[in-house]
């Protein structure tokens, strides 16, 4: 089951309220996305920890319903 962009944004926002999120549907198939997420929660933590915060916000959907989401994170 593909996951719509709005759903992904909502999940991330619920966990990371100050996030600015930009998501591209790379192939127009609701299955391959690239997301850029900017949040103060990423300040002073490693890239691995930043990506883990995003993965946690997706509540286990990553690697399951969500097949391909490439992530770029930045602090602010």
């Amino acid at each position: 089951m593909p996951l719509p962009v709005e759903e992904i944004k909502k999940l991330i926002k619920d966990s990371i309220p100050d996030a600015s999120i930009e998501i591209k549907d790379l192939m127009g198939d609701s299955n391959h996305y690239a997301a850029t997420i900017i949040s103060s929660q990423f300040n002073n933590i490693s890239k691995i920890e930043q990506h883990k915060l995003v993965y946690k916000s997706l509540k286990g959907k990553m690697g399951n319903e969500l097949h391909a989401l490439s992530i770029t994170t930045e602090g602010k």
Partner: protein
Amino acid sequence: MEINKKIESLINDNEVCLFMKGTPDAPQCGFSMAVTNVLKHLNVNFKGINVLEDEDLRQGIKEFSDWPTIPQLYVKKEFIGGCDIVKEMFEKGELKELLVSKKII
């Protein structure tokens, strides 16, 4: 747990260890191919572990690293990241720096 012991021995025995879908010569997923290409470009001698051949390993590595996706790169027992992080580090020159500082290349 059996699978954790196996993972530990893989990352202990191989300085650069890539858990991936497919093999370095025939990656079976675009993300695994991207990391393979980066490592080849940097002339890194690495061990590719095909998780598609072992369902326990495919699930086990996700729990071991607390990371939900494959590929996963380990250098000298340290988890470096998945495809996005490895690509970003490569583009910024940080991956090369890390590999040089760890005396891999």
